[in-house]
């Protein structure tokens, strides 16, 4: 099979891993995570500003647009550490939106927005709809050409961090084709955004009503590049979320280990019981596989064919290992595991949410099967 990727790292990746490990740990202690869960905005604006100042939003943006000119490979260690520390910000949604702009935006659209994003402006994507299908080509919202521009109609769901994003890129169907429309949040009518109740309490997401929104014709992405834009979004989102879920797996396994090493029952540290220790090892093995796939996917980023196989393997393995490790963490914490105070549930919920956003492990495998066997 020649479309299987290899593994390797860049110096920049390793440097960023070190910096991100410390930054995310320092800026996102668990009591702060829990306090932000109650907060409307859902993140610390000072931390978000620092992320912009560190240049992390500029990493995968070309130098011509004031970016650093590296690739998504170097974003991976950052997203991994954010997931590990449940450091929620618009970082992921903004990074994926930038990749969408790079894939489908015109020169003028890129020049207008990429430098802003590189400097710390949040952006997001509005892709999901009521049918619940993960297929990004399945779009029911519409755009109709009128005298005043493209009149949009329909509802987009799970638009992450939309209240913070200055730019929202929405998929709509225009004359039978999927197109991407750039919407400035400041132009939205009152009430267009409704905050959704989502399972991941550390994230924020909104339903966007498009009815009544009209964008200029030149706010549409190039119609000839819709297919590659969809592919780029899938891969960028797959990679970012695989990274977050891999980091999350590590965190929830360490959290479980901590409990297994300190909790006593029947006069014994419970971690000495094989009924707890053996499945924990199995979960750990699955996490290490996920991390290996993650760095393979980062290494293979941009390679035709291999890149997609590697990203989907990473996403599938990350989602299954994160889900499983968090599920067992709840169980192994016993009665405490059933309470909201136990952090295991934060991870279990996040794994469900991330799977819902990009397609769960089974969905990733169904896409992979076509790449591997057909």
């Amino acid at each position, binding site marked *: 099979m020649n479309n299987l990727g290899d593994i390797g790292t860049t110096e920049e990746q390793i440097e960023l891993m070190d910096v991100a490990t410390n930054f995310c740990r320092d800026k996102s202690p668990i009591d702060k995570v829990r306090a932000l869960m109650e907060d409307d905005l859902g993140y610390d604006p000072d931390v978000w500003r620092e992320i912009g100042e560190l240049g992390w939003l500029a990493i995968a943006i070309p130098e011509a647009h004031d970016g650093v000119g590296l690739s998504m490979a170097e974003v991976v260690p950052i997203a991994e550490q954010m997931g590990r520390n449940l450091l929620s910000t618009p970082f992921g949604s903004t990074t994926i939106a930038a990749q969408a702009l790079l894939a489908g935006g015109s020169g003028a659209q890129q020049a207008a927005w990429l430098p802003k994003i590189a400097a710390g402006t949040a952006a997001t994507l509005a892709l999901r709809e009521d049918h619940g299908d993960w297929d990004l080509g399945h779009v029911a919202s519409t755009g109709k050409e009128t005298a005043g521009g493209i009149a949009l109609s329909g509802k987009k769901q799970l638009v992450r961090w939309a209240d913070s994003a200055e730019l929202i890129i929405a998929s709509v169907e225009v004359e039978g084709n999927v197109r991407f429309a750039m919407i400035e949040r400041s132009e939205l009518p009152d009430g267009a955004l409704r905050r959704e109740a989502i399972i991941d309490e550390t994230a924020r997401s909104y339903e966007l009503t498009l009815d009544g929104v009209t964008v200029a014709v030149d706010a549409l992405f190039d119609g000839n590049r819709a297919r590659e834009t969809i592919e780029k979004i899938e891969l960028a989102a797959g990679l970012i979320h695989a990274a977050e879920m891999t980091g999350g797996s590590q965190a929830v396994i360490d959290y479980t280990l901590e409990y297994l090493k300190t909790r006593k029952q029947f006069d014994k540290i419970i971690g000495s019981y094989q009924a707890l220790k053996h499945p924990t090892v199995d979960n750990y093995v699955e996490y290490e596989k996920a991390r290996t796939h993650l760095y393979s996917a980062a290494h293979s980023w941009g390679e035709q064919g291999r890149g997609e196989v590697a990203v989907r393997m990473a996403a599938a393995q990350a989602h299954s290992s994160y889900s499983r490790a968090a599920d067992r963490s709840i169980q192994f914490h016993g009665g405490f595991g059933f309470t909201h105070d136990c952090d295991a549930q934060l991870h279990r919920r996040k794994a469900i949410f991330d799977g819902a956003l990009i397609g769960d492990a089974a969905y990733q495998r*169904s896409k992979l099967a076509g790449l591997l*066997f057909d």
Partner: protein
Amino acid sequence: MAEKPSAAELKEFGDAADAWFKENTVRDPGFMLPLTFMEVSTDQQFDFLRDWQRKVYEAGFLGASWPREYGGGGMHSEYQRVATRAMKKYDAPIMINAIGNGWAGPLILDLGSEEQKQTYIKGMLNAEDIWCQGFSEPEHGSDLGNAQLKAVKEGDEYVLNGSKIWTSLGDRAKYMILLARTDFEAENKYKGLSFFLNPMKIDGISTSRIKKLTGEYGFVQTFFTDARISADCLFGGEGNGWSMAMKTLEYERGAKVKPVGGYFVKELDVMQIVELAKNSMRNGKPLLDDPVMRDKMTQYMIDIQALNLNNTRRRMPQLMQDKPMGLPLMNKLARTELIRELTEFSLGFQGTKAGYYVGDENAVDDGYWHRSYLNSFSATIGGGTSEIQRNIVAEHALGLPKTR
């Protein structure tokens, strides 16, 4: 130590290895070749593999980085890596002297005397001297530290009584690395153990072959009845047997002694399984059109790819910082369990044909898959069962307390 070779030097060596294995590799000698050193059954198989190892050694592609003064090639370890890669590329048969080259050799090179190195190393490289391992006992499989084979010192000899099991190649071996109890009063069970480089072809030692679940032979039980060996056979000093035995396990990771090269166990070729799946039918359609089989096969591809890449990641310290012992310690558990699951899965492809076995002309691939599945247990049980491996990972990589 030998200097790191330039890219050009390596390429030249690699090309030579490539050409040699291309010309000399015999993949089908007309009889079934063992996939692992643990399943050498017939004289024909034994003679072929022993001869093959000698040829590879004499061509300079085994032990290339072991010291020249004891029979090795004295070259940088990169050369051996390149040679092993060529071996794999041509799907060459296994090296047979696993216990000698993988376990005893590194121990002797690391801690042995000059005389021991002169005596043992060359003969194990050219497979003249076959080695076997005497750790497990019939009553002490997983609980190795509780080994009871008795070694009593009398003058300048030890007298051995007891039995060892799973001593693969024991009936053909010249030497055994032996874990025996020299002190029954020691403060704990480990401290009573000593390690011997034990000669096999002496009075008082007999072997009996064990028929495996596959119907083949390969495993051997060895009996010791008042067998007398020289006290010089003691290795590492009395009471240090456990730490010697544990050291043999460390060398597998190539930390202290350059790996000898080659391989003793053939890796399963996953693409063969994919091919088998593609050529199988279910309900009149290709098997891989069946969504359940498709999903499972995909998951196995993800697993295989992860374990293959883990071997590369193990050499990347930047990606190993958090739990550095994790990947090395989990490898055996993950790999052997995966092979067991995969080979079992492959039986399901065969439909009615899954009922046939080695020896019937209707068997798919001459029964290769059935044999591989049944043999896979040798690796999930031998060398520490998967259950013991989970304890090892839990205690040494994750820091969980011992199970007692």
